[in-house]
């Protein structure tokens, strides 16, 4: 019994091991499945399958404010303009999910470059980059995002970029610290003795050790972006002209007094389920990828 258990670990890379740990955590796998379903929904929202886009955007003033679960035709009801809420919330998934992904993908390269340069080279490079980071930290992130979006326009690209420009600092700080430690290690010295260039040492030798920081930070950032999108929508600064969770919640603020809850309940429930899944999955991923817990197959937390 003991032997078979050990065989599982033999010859596996740390990454494979963490996947293994993740697979043994039923809560994490359930959360992962939910996330995948949402991702599929976001991709589905791009196409006009089942007339999805039409139902989400075409006005039908005869069917205004149909309550949820009252007809099969509109399972989650309709809004002020008679648009189908279910279709809108599915299409809205696209904005939130792609925004989170795009913001993360813009953020990671900036953070990697800044963090690795300042941690690896130190000295005046470090001073300059630390100065930039402390200036950005000094300004509440929402303010930069707000001003940028207000000044440059409410397009998807600019909003994602604004999130990235404020979001990279957290990851870069973590990476700077790890690079400062890593450059003193023997394996880096060994690589340098073999004649490896700085670029090779940074990207081939040190950076792969930090994958788990990057992945975990990506997920945290994702949660943050999705929640901030609602705030931007409230300020009137979210993506213009398409349904998004934030826009739907924002629209519902005028409808509640009349008892029209459809918009808010649908968008909130979708967002809630996705964020809970993402939070659980992120926590599990952090535990699974933590190199300190090498041979633990699963971690009993709480």
């Amino acid at each position, binding site marked *: 019994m003991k032997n078979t258990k050990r065989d599982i670990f033999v010859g596996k890379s740390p990454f494979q091991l963490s996947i293994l740990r993740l697979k043994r955590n039923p809560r994490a796998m359930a959360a992962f499945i939910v996330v995948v379903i949402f991702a599929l929904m976001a991709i589905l929202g791009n196409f006009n399958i089942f007339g999805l886009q039409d139902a989400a955007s075409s006005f039908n003033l005869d069917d205004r404010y149909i309550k949820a679960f009252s007809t099969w035709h509109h399972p989650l009801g309709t809004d002020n303009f008679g648009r189908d809420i279910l279709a809108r919330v599915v299409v809205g998934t696209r904005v939130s999910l792609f925004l989170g992904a795009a913001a993360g993908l813009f953020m990671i390269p900036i953070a990697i470059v800044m963090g690795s340069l300042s941690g690896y080279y130190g000295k005046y490079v470090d001073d300059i980059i630390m100065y930039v980071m402390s200036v950005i930290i000094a300004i509440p992130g929402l303010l930069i995002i707000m001003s940028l979006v207000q000044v440059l326009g409410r397009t998807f690209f600019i909003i994602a970029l604004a999130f990235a420009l404020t979001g990279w600092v957290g990851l870069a700080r973590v990476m700077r610290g790890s690079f400062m430690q890593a450059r003193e290690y023997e394996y880096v010295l060994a690589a340098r003795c073999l004649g490896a260039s700085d670029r090779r040492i940074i990207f081939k030798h040190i950076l792969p050790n930090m994958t788990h920081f990057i992945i975990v930070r990506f997920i945290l950032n994702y949660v943050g972006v999705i929640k901030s999108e609602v705030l931007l929508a409230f300020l009137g600064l979210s993506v213009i002209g398409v349904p998004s969770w934030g826009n739907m919640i924002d629209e519902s603020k005028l409808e509640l007094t009349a008892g029209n809850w459809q918009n808010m309940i649908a968008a909130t429930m979708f*967002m809630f389920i996705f964020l809970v899944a993402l939070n659980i999955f992120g926590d599990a991923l952090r535990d699974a990828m933590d190199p300190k817990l090498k041979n633990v197959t699963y971690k009993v937390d709480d």
Partner: protein
Amino acid sequence: MVNYIIRRLLHLVPIILGVALVFFLIFNVIGGQEKYLYNMLPQKSRSAEQIDYYRHKYGLDRPLVVQYLDMVKQMVTFDFGKSESRKLPVTMLIKRHVPASAALTVPAFFFEISISLILASLAAYWRGSWLDKTLTVLSVIGMSISMLVLIMLGQQFLAYRMGLFPISGWTRGIGAVKYLLLPWLLWVTVTVGYDVRFFRTTLLEESHRDYVRTARAKGVGNRNIMVNHILLNAMIPILTYVVMQIPFLLTGSLLLERFFSIPGIGDLMVNSIASYDLPVLKATVMVYTLFFVSFTLITDILYALVDPRVRLS
């Protein structure tokens, strides 16, 4: 100590210059100004002359270096020019709006931190009990619901349907408390989840330290260890975290002031976005930033006072 404070104050100078540069880049360089003026003007008067007139009025036709120095001057002297939509000096507007914001955020922040600290200590003390588990579940739920939704639900049910609180409004003086009760309650509900989670982890980390084992070996009681050893030593990470939460006060004040018609800075800011009032938007953004920067400075000095381990060099 005096030396340390002076040095910290000197550190502030490049930070302020950098902050001014960021906003300068956003507002004056990236090309937002054209579009901004364009959007600000009503459709009829969008002529080239009008835009030139406003550009001259805001000093956007001067060399960039002069504009930048002007921005720095504005931040240091607190003189932000005149509001475009209200025809009043911006500084006066801000002065008028600060008390309401302070009355909303400062007590809310204080309640929230103390409540979550108490809850976290209880959860850490009885680790694994039903209380601990309930708090964990509630905090995950709290983290996954948008603040906007909670505010709308709270106002809808507690104020409008059940009539427990006034729906919205504001008076000067102490009478304002009755309008602030619900915003405070909502703020605490929204943020307590995050904080309990973090404080609990910090306290648990601290409880595995050597000095805790030593204290236990000496025969110090559990409760005594929790209060006198763990809580006091956890104060440094907790303080750091609390300072990091201050930017989120901005979100709170933006949303709550809007929904409960509290005439604060957040309300002013949202209005300035809606009416394309560039001087006011710039000013509110800078005031928030200055507030945050000075708060960070104060905590840094507090660290040095509280914790002898902080090096003063």
